């Protein structure tokens, strides 16, 4: 589990019960998200249908985590994302997961551009059906980590093939996982290699792409995204 800038006092782990505010204009999906969260022992303190109600609920309940849709009333555009960005500014410690039927790199960058200790996640809505994976993302975001949908990363990696040609295949793999918000330890586990090997790859990537190797957590993700989006 990535734990950079973890919320002080919460010490959230996968088993920790979190208070969550859920926002989605569809009752069906509010119930779906709440059902999965409750199944993993979290407490949904408010389930609302628009961005204003979301911000109000966050002020009223001071939750550990917010799970919000992007497209909500009144404009059915990006109200949810804008609310998430405002919440992140006003309450930097609250973890936020933004869900959407479609993912776009630009949204991820906007969410992560705010330097806050609280965790942030940007996932395709259907990931709530991969319940264990979603529970993991929830725990990670609540603990201050960063979770990016693999499709965002895939799209960006695919598009930026030419500058990434400098990277070895294994390094590209590592870069993809870094962009998704995985820590060095998690990458080592996923690729079944040693921590030291991952550190070596990461160092080599940062050197080749001219990035600052001291960055960690969502700042590292942001740097990688910014690089990919160049």
């Amino acid at each position, binding site marked *: 589990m990535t734990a950079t800038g973890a919320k002080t006092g919460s010490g959230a782990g996968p088993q920790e019960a979190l208070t969550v505010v859920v926002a989605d204009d569809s009752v069906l*999906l509010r119930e779906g998200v709440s059902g999965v969260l409750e199944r993993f022992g979290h407490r949904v303190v408010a389930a609302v249908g628009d961005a204003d109600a979301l911000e109000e609920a966050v002020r009223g309940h001071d939750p550990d985590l917010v799970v919000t849709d992007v497209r909500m009333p009144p404009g059915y555009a990006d109200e949810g994302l804008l609310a998430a960005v405002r919440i992140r500014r006003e309450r930097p410690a609250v973890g936020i997961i933004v869900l959407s039927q479609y993912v776009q790199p630009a949204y991820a960058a906007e969410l992560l551009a705010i330097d806050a200790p609280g965790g942030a996640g940007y996932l395709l809505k*259907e990931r709530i059906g991969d319940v264990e994976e979603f529970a993991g993302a929830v725990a990670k975001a609540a603990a201050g980590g960063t979770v990016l949908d693999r499709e965002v990363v895939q799209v960006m990696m695919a598009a930026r093939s030419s500058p990434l040609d400098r990277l070895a295949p294994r390094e590209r793999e590592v870069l993809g996982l870094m962009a998704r918000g995985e820590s060095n330890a998690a990458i080592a586990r996923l690729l079944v290699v040693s921590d030291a090997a991952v550190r070596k790859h990461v160092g080599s990537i940062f050197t080749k792409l001219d990035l600052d190797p001291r960055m960690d957590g969502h700042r590292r993700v942001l740097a990688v995204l910014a690089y990919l989006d160049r």
Partner: protein
Amino acid sequence: MPIRTLRAAITHAPHRFLLSAWPWRALAYLLAGTVAGTLLFGTAHAMALNWPDSGRHWRVVGPLMGMLFLATVFGSTPLVVRWGRWCEGLVGARPEPPRGEAASAARPWGRPLSPRLWRDVGYTVLSFSAFYVLDVVVLLLALGAPLAGVLTYWNAEQLRVFEWVPTVLAWGSLWLVGLYLVAAWAAARSEIARAVLSPREDRLAAELSAVTASRAALAEAFDDERRRIERDLHDGAQQRLVAAKAALGLARLDLPPGSPAADAVRQAQDHVTASLSELRDLVRGVHPQVLTERGLRAALRDAAARTDAPVDIGIDLPGRLPAAVESTAYFVVCEALANAAKHAPGASVRVRGGVREGVLRVAVTDDGPGGAKPDGGGLDGLRHRLAVLGGELAVDSPEGGPTTVRLEIPQV
């Protein structure tokens, strides 16, 4: 086929003509046509009669009267023309008054003389001269002659009854012939009046602008429909599939791992996942969400990111553009990107665009082998969409490359 003009009524259905409203319309048309002339000549006549010592000063008064007469004709042009248009409505479709710059004829004073003004003055002179004379002659011939005949023999005592009845009936039936005469002259008069009042090029221009407007409305409806489909899928099928996937995911937690039931649920979940992925691709082709939410620049970056070829994109826009412009430009660039990926695999693509002086210009260039047909495939349909917005598409693809697709949309 419904009959909409007097001319059609006489030529297509002469046998039913007398039973229709057309003879009366024709009659009303001619009577209305004489109103202006009767007013003018009546007034002139009355003034000439009542002028003090008109006989003695005729050399002075005559030219003065003439000038006054001309000034009246000229000054009454707007009124006469409007009245003339209204009259035309009695025997067919009312000619549309000219719009915009050409509308100066409605107020001849204080405006430079336009060809239209001369036409309107011509119409006025015509309706005070030839039209007036012929209207009166035709009305007198067609209605007055039978009337005179009927009146003459009505009280003719020298005729016996069996002579009197057919004589009066024969004169009376001349009214029916007279109605045909009235209609024939009315139709001819209307043809001439229309030719003068609303010449062919004006009518064509009016039709063209109507067609252009309806085409734009169609294109807009098409765009609205695409957005509606996207919204319906987003609010309907996609949500249900996501909810189904979540329900299946929760169900799987309760099943012993590796059991046949757990495997079946996992398979069901995989199918749902695949459907969702297909739906996303479908929606992206119909009307991508990012275009609605964030506009052209973000949508093009998204499209570029999803293209196989490496795309270098530089779009500089002042803000959001009209929805129709955004979606048209988006689909043209997507088609160009797809063509580049298909016909020039491995080539790198550059997209450059921006708005300058109210014109959106986007160029998509690939360094492939070139030789692309300028009107191939999907670009043809997009040319029509561009044309609706007054835009243009140019494809430049010399053998050996590079290939450039340029689009221009004015009045952004």
